[in-house]
């Protein structure tokens, strides 16, 4: 076997990756962190110590909290590779990277996948139109480019991030045309049984109430329990239509920002052959892990939101646990010390996770949102409609992977990141009305684009000269 380049490779420099890397590095582990962005922080703390904003406080104090985390990370004794994408991960710990336009592979004894989450796709007729973006995109534009909409947007969907974006926009002086919330009333009742546990994380509840009251004070038109969303427009978005309290509504807008929660980015772990399972509470797939975040593939760990949605604070703590375990398994941290150090981390992590069952059920995605109408584009890349997938499922097609071969749904450049969830739901319902999921796409490299020139190791043509 090739001599390892590192004892630990951490993929992603968000809260989980930064924590895992520095915990291990401070215990003597030889660590490298690979991250696709220019600066550490992940999407949540993006540009937090390199902000283009004149007044960073518009984003709120939870964002500012990240500054200190990034600063301790920058001083940790480890190699940090920015602007580096991972396109390949092998179960043996070999990682293929494109580092500033050059391909190379690194071998590690241990890998911690901390690549975070992605927006849960929110398909409805017209969601692919130019002028429809994700709420996360709106935040990234603020954090990384100090940019806000110059025409009032409509915010649609469900989940804390939708309200947070509205709140941040209000603080930045951006007008919001309307909020169209698809959160279902019946979900709220079932969320109540998780309320006692959520009180252990009451700071999250207070923050939520703060957001809601600020949005109310701003008197933004706020439509609740909206359904039957559709977007119209030819070259650009022109309007959004929906049903609310029995009435059909139409709002003309050039910009629509969508959100219905986030789901773990499963690609790397799935490509490495780690076993996963369906999490019905969070309505998504997640990698099966032990108490330290190690997967079914020895030496491959998943931490943070990539392992299950818990938020930034829990990710920071979960990353530490994985880092401690790697140090322990390499013989650099005795078991008793590992356990002592992990104890306070675990209890803090549990406190942050206490809010999740409540949030997950309050913002549970309704059946109508999981299974959009026939004319919806399920696959944005290859332009495959929900109707085509439904027809295949009725004709006895065996599941998502066969339907991929038949329709190319999932074969486009996004590699199933934005159609996989819809495909799974359609096939699950065909199999049984109450079946939650029907397997997911097989994931194969390249997970990120790599040119033949880069692969061949030739002189790079793209980023130089």
């Amino acid at each position, binding site marked *: 076997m090739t001599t390892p380049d590192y004892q630990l490779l951490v993929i992603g420099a968000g809260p989980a990756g930064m924590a895992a890397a520095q915990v291990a590095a401070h215990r003597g582990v030889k660590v490298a962190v690979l991250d696709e962005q220019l600066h550490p922080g992940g999407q949540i703390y993006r540009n937090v110590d390199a902000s283009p*904003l004149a007044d960073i406080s518009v984003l709120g104090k939870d964002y500012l909290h990240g500054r200190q985390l990034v600063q301790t990370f920058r001083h940790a004794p480890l190699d940090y590779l920015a602007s580096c994408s991972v396109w390949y991960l092998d179960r043996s710990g070999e990682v293929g990277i494109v580092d500033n336009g050059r391909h190379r592979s690194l071998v590690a004894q241990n890998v911690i996948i901390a690549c975070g989450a992605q927006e849960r796709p929110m398909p409805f007729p017209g969601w*692919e139109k130019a002028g429809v973006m994700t709420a*996360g995109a709106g935040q990234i534009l603020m954090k990384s480019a100090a940019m806000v909409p110059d025409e009032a947007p409509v915010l649609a969907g469900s989940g804390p991030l939708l309200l947070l974006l509205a709140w941040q926009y209000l603080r930045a002086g951006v007008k919001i045309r309307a909020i169209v919330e698809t959160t279902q009333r019946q979900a709220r009742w079932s969320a109540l049984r998780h309320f006692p546990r959520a009180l252990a994380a009451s700071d999250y509840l207070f923050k939520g109430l703060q957001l809601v009251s600020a949005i109310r004070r701003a008197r933004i038109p706020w439509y609740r329990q909206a359904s039957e969303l559709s977007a119209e427009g030819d070259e650009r978005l022109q309007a959004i239509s929906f049903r609310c309290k029995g009435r059909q509504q139409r709002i003309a807008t050039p910009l629509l920002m969508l959100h219905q929660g986030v789901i773990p980015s499963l690609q790397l772990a799935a490509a490495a052959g780690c076993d996963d399972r369906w999490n019905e509470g969070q309505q998504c797939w997640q990698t099966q892990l032990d108490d330290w975040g190690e997967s079914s593939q020895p030496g491959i760990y998943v931490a943070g939101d990539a392992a299950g949605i818990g938020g930034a604070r829990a990710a920071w703590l979960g990353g530490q646990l994985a880092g401690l375990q790697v140090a322990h398994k390499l013989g650099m941290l005795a078991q008793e010390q590992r356990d002592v150090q992990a104890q306070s981390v675990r209890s803090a992590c549990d406190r942050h996770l206490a809010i999740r069952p409540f949030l997950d059920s309050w913002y549970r995605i309704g059946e109508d949102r999981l299974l959009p109408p026939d004319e919806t584009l399920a696959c944005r890349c290859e332009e495959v409609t929900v109707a085509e997938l439904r027809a295949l499922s009725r004709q006895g097609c065996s599941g998502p992977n066969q339907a991929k071969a038949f329709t190319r749904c999932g074969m486009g450049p996004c590699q199933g990141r934005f159609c996989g969830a819809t495909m799974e739901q359609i096939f699950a319902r065909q199999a049984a009305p109450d079946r939650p999921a029907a397997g997911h796409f097989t994931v194969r490299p390249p997970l990120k684009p790599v040119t033949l020139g880069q692969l061949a190791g030739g002189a790079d043509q793209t980023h130089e000269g």
Partner: protein
Amino acid sequence: MFRLLGEASQQVLVELDGVEVSVPAGVSVAAALLYLGRIPTRHSPVTGAARAPFCMMGACFECVLEIDGVSERACQRQVEAGMQLRLQLCGDGEAL
């Protein structure tokens, strides 16, 4: 479509479809196009439908365009002076 909060400290010149344009320095190519209001940024290869940046975090590939001759995700590259950008648009709305 998008504006800067406050003043841009610096601008850089890039070439967009052969025309020199000034955009804020230090932002992604996708952000620069949204600042210019240049959407759609591409027509899809299947039906020629209009598309524009969607996720801004490298996952959706909607913002792909030609940067110095190579198809790349515009949200994953910072603008650089002299960069040659070409939108993957077709004039008559037909598939490429």
